[in-house]
């Protein structure tokens, strides 16, 4: 294949990747989009395989790699539970990061393959690009590994803090920079390459450990962005269109998702990255706070009675629904209510759950049609016309302190105005606070009824009561 044809195919692949992301602008076009992505990848791989000058001995390694890796990937994708998605994405990122490191190593050892010079005489510009790709790749690798461990609970979610932590990271970063300069100046010595790799991995590790387990989604997104920029770096090194374009797409995607999450939490990205905030075990201060104030608590039968007589119910799912795997029970409850003629809708806060779009995937898994599911801006002024807000395992995203209490950690974050509904039902196990550790004053409101218990069990009981 002529090198022009190859480039043209890479261009087509890149355009297909753009169309893949474009497809996600609506659930209707999303499946088609994913297919475009797969076709694009197939074209990129085929173009590379058919490239002029590929050697037979290389083919064996390549095919072996694709078979082994592909089988592993397909197996994981089929068997993973939807609730384990955050850690899966983190694990995948760490692989991309490591792959970038190995590609850089390959380029260093076989520069002729990429037309970037001869061993020990690699072009300066290529060396710069290569080392950028290497460093970012290595940071992505180890950082994502920690994120994975924290999300998978292989490691405690609590922030690991020690003195001079940020100073240490700064020094490490500077050392890496200095080594890159040496690496480039000396024409790419192997040892320096690997020292950079190891130090960058250490840096990735150190950067992530002070961040609490619950902040991992932001971290994962940010590392996603990094992995994109790493791909760009490699793309510049090997002058490959597909890599540069794709890298930029992925970089933008990760950056924007991080931004969306930070905005949804009303925190800055620095606040997240400097660490020390939030643990995945949830609030600590909660329980005792409202000691002398009264809380109205009810049971499933009360809830069923109220909802049966309602004409409009808005369900507000949160992290607790994911923990309890209550989405199927919720769908069943909604079906029952709809059969009774009740108007049932779902209201999703942008940062409900622990990753962007978390609730949407779970509800979709339980066969909730996406036309019943609304974003905050779409539904927020409907609470005033709703009879019941069924808040299941959500907490922070309903907390009016975000509006009123300037001292609160969540002050300024947009919230779902559940308190405007005639009755608010809160399904959670205790009076504990949520992820942000802020007490929720709504629990004490006269129009609130607490339903203490596991989200799934409680909802199933409601369904049974509805049946009677």
């Amino acid at each position, binding site marked *: 294949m002529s090198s022009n044809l190859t480039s043209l195919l890479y261009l087509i692949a890149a355009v297909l990747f753009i169309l893949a992301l474009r497809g996600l602008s609506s659930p209707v076009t999303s499946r088609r989009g994913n297919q475009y992505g797969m076709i694009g990848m197939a074209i990129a791989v085929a173009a590379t395989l058919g490239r002029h000058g590929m050697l037979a001995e290389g083919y064996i390694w390549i095919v072996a790699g694709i078979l082994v890796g592909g089988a592993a990937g397909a197996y994981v994708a089929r068997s993973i539970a939807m609730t384990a998605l955050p850690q899966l994405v983190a694990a995948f990122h760490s692989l991309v990061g490591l792959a970038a490191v190995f*590609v850089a190593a390959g380029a260093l050892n076989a520069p002729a393959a990429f037309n970037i010079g001869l061993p020990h005489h690699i072009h300066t510009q290529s060396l710069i690009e290569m080392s950028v790709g290497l460093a970012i790749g290595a940071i992505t690798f180890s950082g994502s590994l920690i994120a994975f461990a924290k999300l998978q609970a292989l490691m405690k979610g609590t922030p690991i803090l020690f003195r001079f932590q940020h100073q240490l990271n700064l020094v490490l970063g500077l050392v890496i920079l200095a080594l890159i300069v040496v690496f480039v100046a000396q024409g790419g010595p192997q040892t320096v390459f690997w020292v950079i790799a190891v130090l960058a991995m250490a840096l990735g590790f150190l950067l992530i450990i002070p961040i609490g387990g619950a902040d991992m989604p932001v971290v994962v997104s940010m590392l996603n962005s990094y992995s994109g920029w790493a791909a760009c770096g490699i793309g510049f090194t090997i002058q490959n269109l597909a890599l540069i374009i794709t890298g930029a797409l992925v970089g933008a995607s990760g950056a924007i998702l991080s931004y969306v999450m930070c905005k949804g939490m009303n925190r800055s990205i620095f606040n997240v990255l400097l660490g020390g905030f939030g643990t995945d075990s949830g609030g600590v201060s909660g329980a005792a706070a409202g000691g002398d104030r009264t809380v109205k608590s009810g049971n499933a039968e009360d809830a069923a009675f109220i909802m049966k007589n309602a004409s409009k119910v808005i369900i507000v799912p949160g992290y607790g629904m994911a923990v309890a795997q209550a989405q199927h029970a919720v769908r069943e409850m909604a079906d029952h209510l709809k059969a009774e003629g009740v108007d049932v809708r779902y209201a999703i806060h942008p940062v409900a759950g622990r990753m962007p779009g978390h609730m949407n995937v779970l509800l979709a898994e339980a066969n909730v049609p996406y036309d019943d599911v609304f974003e905050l801006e779409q539904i927020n002024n409907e609470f005033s016309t709703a009879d019941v807000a069924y808040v299941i395992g959500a907490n922070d995203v309903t907390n009016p302190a975000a509006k009123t209490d300037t001292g609160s950690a969540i002050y300024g974050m947009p919230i779902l105005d559940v308190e405007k509904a005639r009755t608010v039902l809160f399904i959670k196990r205790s009076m504990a606070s949520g992820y942000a550790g802020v007490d929720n004053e709504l629990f004490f409101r006269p129009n609130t009824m607490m339903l203490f218990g596991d989200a799934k069990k409680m909802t199933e009981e409601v369904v049974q009561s509805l049946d009677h």
Partner: protein
Amino acid sequence: MNSNALADQAHQLAGNANDLAHRLDTLSSIAAPAAAAAEPFIYLLTIFLLACFVGYYVVWNVTPALHSPLMAVTNGISSVIIVGAMLATGLSHGFLPHLFGFLAVTLASVNIFGGFLVTQRMLSMFKSKR
């Protein structure tokens, strides 16, 4: 060395030089447009910047309901780094490049299949009322 032989040699050399000059010309004419136009780096930089714009717009247009599949599918497509891995493996001799290439190909493949299939699984769950 007699003068005849010398003349011969000189003649031959002259011919060589002529030949070289000719090839030089050809080469110049090939190299010229490329040299006069921008260097590939500028082109790549342009492509990079435009791709950043496209990425920005395309991602902002993703509906928030599909942010999770977005994370998964970017996993898949960022593994196009496999192209680099394949080149390192297929265009080189020697154990080290092959080894690194193989490792990178394997890791990227996990991601490609894993990323796209997980996305497909997620998206297949999103259903409309009708």
